[in-house]
């Protein structure tokens, strides 16, 4: 499911993928409102890829690879932030 990442000096990065996050370069102001409004219960979760640390390895995770499973996606302010 998840491919292992080749690690160099640059920090691996990911980001949104797929049709739901098309960015119109000319309208940066409206973007935040548009994308925020896309999150609704009963609607598709926006797809993304993200580098990840998992059991000693660095991998690339894609949300849509988890179709068929229940997913809990948890965001938090940062590592070592106490709670």
């Amino acid at each position, binding site marked *: 499911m998840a491919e292992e990442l080749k690690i160099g000096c640059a920090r691996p990065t*990911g980001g949104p993928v797929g049709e739901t996050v098309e960015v119109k370069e000319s309208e940066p102001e409206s973007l935040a409102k548009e994308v925020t409004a896309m999150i609704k219960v009963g*609607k598709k979760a*926006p797809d*993304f890829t993200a580098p990840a640390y998992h*059991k000693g390895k660095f991998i690339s995770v894609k949300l849509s690879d988890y179709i068929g499973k229940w*997913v*809990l996606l*948890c965001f938090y302010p940062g*590592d*070592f932030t106490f709670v």
Partner: protein
Amino acid sequence: MSVDSVFVHKMWDENELSKMVKGGVPFPMLSDAGGKVGTVYGIYDEDAGVETRGRFIIDPDGVIQGYEVLTPPVGRNVGETIRQVQAFQLVRNSKGTEATPSGWKPGKITLKPGPDLVGKVWEVWKTEMAFD
């Protein structure tokens, strides 16, 4: 998922989390540099440059069934999240014929919405059932 790099995730897991959870964190710890994914999910705090405590329940079709967002100083209730997943799984397995009333948890009664139940919930479900 946080804005930290995977390298910091590794250090946190090895140096602290593995001392709380045997074997370390069992699931992938995702990195979201710049909060790009968090922005799309509406939980990235641009002023602070961090993600807030957003939690999304996504079903096997990739559909968001529920979410919760907390500001940084208050931690989540994992038991409540698991209860919600159990409730959504029950509803899905029933193909939408059953619904879980307030305070439902495994073992408590579910309701079968339909014409016969209209105005009759009070007969089968009591408010005490909303509490543990």
